[in-house]
C-alpha cells in the first residue's frame, strides 16, 4: 500500500475492563495526525530503544494487514501512529487494542476486529491475565496473543520465557474467553459514541 491516508481518530475510551477479581482499568487514548508534530520527538525516542521497537511495530503491522481489506483501497497507505501515554504492563496488547479501535474509527474496511490479550505464567504455573509491569517481570513466561473477533482464531502471538505445550493451550483458552470481554467493550464504547452523535 503506497500513498497516504492517515487515520483521523481521537477516541477517548473509558476504563478497559478485564476479567478476574482484579480490574486494572487503564484508560487508553490514542491520537493520529494532530499529534504528528509532537510525535517527532517520540519518534526519535523509539529509535533509541531500537530493535525491540521494530519487532513490536512489525507484529502490530502484520496483524493489521491480516484483517484490513487492502484490496478495496489500492494505492493507499494507512499509517497507524501509536503513542504510549503510560506503560503499566501488557503494553503490546494495549497497542493492539488501540490500533483496532483507531482503524474502526477511521472507517477502514476490515474482515474482523482483533484484540490483544496478555497472559503471564508464574513459577508455580498459575495463570494471570493482563499482568501489571511488576507481575510481568516476576513471571516465568509472558505470552501475548492477538485474536480475531469472528472465530477467536490466533492472529499473532509473541512469547517470552519457557513454558510447556499444555500451558500454551491453557493460556490460549483463557485468552479466548478474555477476548469476548474486550470485544463486548469495543461494541459498547462504539455504541455509546454513535448514539451521542
Amino acid at each position: 500500500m503506497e500513498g497516504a491516508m492517515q487515520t483521523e481518530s481521537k477516541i477517548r475510551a473509558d476504563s478497559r475492563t478485564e476479567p478476574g477479581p482484579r480490574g486494572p482499568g487503564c484508560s487508553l487514548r490514542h491520537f493520529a495526525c494532530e499529534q504528528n508534530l509532537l510525535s517527532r520527538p517520540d519518534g526519535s525516542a523509539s529509535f533509541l530503544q531500537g530493535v525491540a521497537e521494530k519487532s513490536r511495530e512489525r507484529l502490530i503491522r502484520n496483524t493489521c494487514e491480516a484483517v484490513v481489506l487492502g484490496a478495496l483501497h489500492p494505492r493507499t497507505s494507512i499509517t497507524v501512529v501509536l503513542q504510549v501515554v503510560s506503560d503499566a504492563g501488557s503494553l503490546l496488547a494495549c497497542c493492539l487494542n488501540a490500533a483496532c479501535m483507531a482503524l474502526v474509527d477511521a472507517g477502514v474496511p476490515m474482515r474482523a476486529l482483533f484484540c490483544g490479550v496478555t497472559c503471564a505464567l508464574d513459577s508455580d504455573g498459575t495463570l494471570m491475565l493482563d499482568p501489571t509491569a511488576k507481575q510481568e517481570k516476576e513471571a516465568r513466561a509472558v505470552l501475548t496473543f492477538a485474536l480475531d473477533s469472528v472465530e477467536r482464531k490466533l492472529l499473532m502471538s509473541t512469547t517470552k520465557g519457557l513454558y510447556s505445550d499444555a500451558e500454551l493451550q491453557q493460556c490460549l483458552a483463557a485468552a479466548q474467553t478474555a477476548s469476548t470481554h474486550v470485544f463486548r467493550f469495543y461494541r459498547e464504547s462504539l455504541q455509546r459514541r454513535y448514539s451521542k452523535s
Partner: protein
Amino acid sequence: RTVEPLEYYRRFLKENCRPDGRELGEFRTTTVNVGSIGTADGSSLVKLGNTTVICGIKAEFGAPPTDAPDKGYVVPNVDLSPLCSWRFRSGPPGEEAQVASQFIADVIENSQIIQKEDLCISSGKLAWVLYCDLICLNHDGNILDACTFALLAALKNVQLPEVTINEETALAEVNLKKKSYLNIRTHPVATSFAVFDDTLLIVDPTEEEEHLATGTLTVVMDEEGKLCCLHKPGGSGLTGAKLQDCMSRAVTRHKEVKKLMDEVFKSMKPK
C-alpha cells in the same frame, strides 16, 4: 509459474505435495559444518536446502551490566545483505534483519541456552561478551530456523580460554593453552510453518512459498518439549487444534536436528 504463482501452488497443494517434490511436512536436506572459521572462537555453517547461514562467535572482554554484575552477555546480530537476496539493499540493517536479530536474542534469553553466570569472570568487573554474527549467504526462505540451528552449533563449538585475575596487578591473564567448551544447557530448535489460504500448513517454506503464504509461524522447542518462543507475526488466524499439529511436528523436528548435531560433534571429538 511466473504469471499465476498462487494458482500454480494451489494445484500442487491439492495433491498434498509441493513443486520441489516435498511433502507438506517435510524439511529440506539439512547439512551442518562446524569449526570452519579459524579466526573465530566458534563457528558453524548450516544449509537448509539452498538457504545458507554462517555463524561466527567472538568472545571478548567487557564490563558486566550494572544491573546484573555477575552475568556476561550474548549479542546476536543477523546480517541480511544484498548477497543473499535481491530483496535487500546494502546499508543499515533493514527491518527483516532487525526482527531476526531480536528473535535470536529472545531465543537465547528465553531458552537459557547458556547460563549467563558462566560467562562472568570477576563479578562487577570483567565478564565475557559473546558477539554472535549470523550472516546469511543465500536466502531461500526459512531464515529463522537456519539461524537458530547455526547459533546452536556455533555455541557448542566455542572454546573459551581460561582467565585468571592476577591479584597484584588486578589484570586479567589469559591462558590460551587451556580452553574449555561452553556449558550448553538446552538445545532449542526452531520449526517454521507457512499458512496458506487460512487452512493449510506447510513446513520449512522456501522464499517463494513465504511470499505466497498468508501467514507464518515459528515454534522454538527444547528437548523437554518446553516452548521457548512462539513467534507468529500476524497473518491469518489459527485454531488451537492446528497449533497442536505444529507442536507435534516441532517435536519430531527437534529429534531429527538433535541427532544430526550429535553425529557432527561426535565426528569432531578426536581432533
